């Protein structure tokens, strides 16, 4: 899988988490206050992993 494919999958994951009806799932009552930050941080972590796997000239 190329880095671009991974990027697109990560983007779709981001859209799924933060720009889809799934937002209602993680924002329902009873969720810890820091949950959005955890999801956000997870997305950033995956982004770091993808960037680490890229070649120097592959942007």
């Amino acid at each position, binding site marked *: 899988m190329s880095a671009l494919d991974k990027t697109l999958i990560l983007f779709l994951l981001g859209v799924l988490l933060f720009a889809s009806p799934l937002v209602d799932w993680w924002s329902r009552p009873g969720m810890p*206050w820091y949950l959005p*930050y955890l999801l*956000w941080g997870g997305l950033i972590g995956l982004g770091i992993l993808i960037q680490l796997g890229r070649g120097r000239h592959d942007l």
Partner: protein
Amino acid sequence: MISEIGVLYAAGVAYLALLFFIAHATERGWLPTALVRHPMVYVLSLGVYATTWTYYGSVGFAQSEGYNFLTIYLGVTLAFILAPLLLAPILRLVRDYQLTSLADLFAFRYRSQWTGLLVTLFMLAGILPYLALQIKAVTDSVSVLTQEAPPNLLALGFCATLGLFAILFGARHITPREKHEGLVVAIAFESAVKLVTLLMVGAFALLGIFGGWGGLNTWLTEHPEALEALYSPVSEGPWFTLILLAFAAAFLLPRQFHMLFVENMDPHALRVATWGLPLFLLLLNLPIPLILWAGQAVALETPADYFVLALPVDGGAGWLALFTFIGGVSAASAMMIITTLALAAMCLNHLILPAHVNQQTLPQSNLYGWLLWGRRLLILLIIALGYGFYWLLEFNQGLVQVGLISFVAVAQFLPGYLALLFWPRATRIGFIAGLLGGITVWVLALIIPVIHESGLPMINFNLAVFMGAEDENRWAFATFWSLAVNSVLFVIGSLLTRPTREETEAAQACRREQFSPTGVSADARNVAQLESHLAQVIGPQTAHLEIQRALTDMGMQPSEKRPGELRRLRTHLERNLSGLMGPLLARMIVDNQLNVAPQAQVALADSLRFVEEQLEHSTVRLRGLAAELDTLRRYHRQVLHELPLGVCSIDPGGDILIWNNTMAMISGIEAAHAVGQPLNALKDPWEGVLRTFINGDDKHLYKLQISVDGRYRWLNLHKAAIESPTLGHSATHGLGGMVVLVEDLTELHNLESEVAHNDRLASIGRLAAGVAHEIGNPLTGITSLAQNLRYEQDPAEVDLTVKQILEQTRRINDIVQSLITFSHAGEAPRPLPVAVNLNACVDEALQLIKLSDVGREVTCINEVPKDLKARGNHQRLLQVFVNLVNNALQASSPGDRVAIRGSRLPGGVEIHVDDEGAGIPSGLLDQIFEPFFTTKPPGEGTGLGLSVVYSIIQDHGGLVYADSHAQGGTRFSIRLPAIEEEETMA
């Protein structure tokens, strides 16, 4: 300590002075380059995204809209995840074409002054309230700290200081093309200050107000409504709208575009920014709920927008409040400085300069200074306008509301931006129509209601309410309808119009699909002419500097005359001028002054080179079939370059297209110095050799002897005309010309000479006994005559005896000379072919053979006509006949005859050497001319004789073959080319 306005003003000024120092230290090189160029500095500089809206306004936003405040940063995160698709191509474009603003980018793609003008005016209208918002945030923060209304002078002083900073560090260089390292580092420092102070306030809230993590949890347990107030608006509020707006703002806001693309010093830093900026924003927003809850816990009376500041004041942490105030100044100043710089560049390129160029009022001297001061004045003017807005408008809206108006405004550029990347069919009419439609909805749905609510005289109209929507949904309404109208008009307008040639070229350049150069310079024949044409518009001084700069960038010499290179220089000049004056004016100046003939045929060599360059740069973007074809192309090119034959391809105009590695090795001319050059630019003897061969009728030239640097080389040349493989218009349409293959035979020739020499030595060995015998006879005679001479008294007899001695001596001399001639043949450079009398040559060969003891009892008959001549080399043909007759004698039995006959043929002569020997088996006839092939027992033959014959006759352009007679015996036949009439006469 902080209740005094003077103290706050002094702190603000001291902080800005620190920024001055950081920027100055960077520009002076006092900071290590590794730090200045570190990707994290780039990432932090992108933190200019976080303004006072984030710094102060996020808490207020969180109070009213719960976690919706995160959308403003989650949208940026999604945009940066897509950086390889969304941002990297624009970064390449901005760097390649030296674009300095979003207006430049759109004007470059949609090729119209109206595009640049509209984008600039709309951006000004959309962003000026945002600038005013920053001034308001700073003055409000002062009033929160001092509990009194700040004087107007404070805001004015703040604006004046920022204007000075922007001028000193953002408009410092002669040309806007150059990066402002000092500015970037200062803005990165500001981001770090924002982050650290906000984290400190967050820590103060957690530890100082709640007493730690446990206290927070207890408070949250006791106040479940606080958490509920954060989560519940998520499903009710404009979540998706805000995500979309932030997604667009991430790269379309003037300050974001400026820091992301224009001030980028290392394209690879963008890789770090794809996660670095989202991480920065996450950390920046982490304390926001804590600060909000802490403010609520201590029941602050200050509006939530300023909890960040009020919380430390209320908690008695004066030092933290001061730091927080500095952080707010930081957020406001970074945004204002960068936005002002970006807007000033837009205004200069798309409002001021076009008017001057159209009226031909550009200064003829010191254009750089004029542009620099123009930018500086615009910076002051824009900051003054921002101050004017601040003074004029009473911001009844929260910080976030005003910011969102700007976000909806810049989102109107999203359709144009995406089309620039992915839709080459888009036209400027579509872009302008879409933008005007979006602006109209933006004004009706947001601007008029906001102005009305601000108390200014304005009609009470709200498009959202008019259309039946609720006012709370104004952001979703305005965003959806403005973008919908914008996109629909954009698509319809584009489909109803046809892109102009310039737009098509620009679209190809945006997608890196521009595979043919745009034209050739028709007038300029050298660099000096190019400079003089350019000087007519931008003045001689600027023209000279621009030419020098372009020459340096391209690594060219001022003496460059190659049309292709001049075209590349012209293209580079256009890009440099684009950085100075915007893409449209640069194109206009270059088109008008450096006359372009768009219809003129672009040199094929130039086209191919351009295509190669484009493909090299677009490697990472090719996918699917295109990628496969590119791989195939690279393979073919590699094959061509690694071919062990010299390959040289010439276009119809006489320019060299291909010059492969072997050709470079044979000629000693590197490909870089040959490709694109006309033939006559090659050094001797290559220009003459190639030109004569290409213009000649022969498709093949064998064993051409040339002298290169005092050494002889032997070459085979082959040529073929190249037919056009394509139909229709394309970069390589009309491909033609000639391909020349060059075969270096020098090593083979040297080997052959060695073989022939060995053969001669072998022959001389065989002749040795005969030579001794032949020389012995006259020597005996001379000895006898000399002895008789001692006693001879009669002068007449003495005279006769001396004559006889001399006769015998001449006989010996003849034998020795023949031997010397034979043994030296081929060692020296071969003389040019001349007419050779074949009868005499055969006679000489027979004389030599008589010296050997081979076939003494065989009769040799020379029946070659006395006047039969052939074009050739006497000594080498002598060796041919010696070898053939020798071969015939060895095959003959005592009493046999060997006959050498000759006759004329149309276009040549034919010689037969017939013997009456046993003949050669038909199965061996194909092998007898191979080196070292012999039917004789080991030690009796070298197997070189006939192969030498074959090689020499080949060199003469002739044929040699053998037949065995049915009745026995073998016939060797030689065909040699005829000689010209005059040579015959001679």
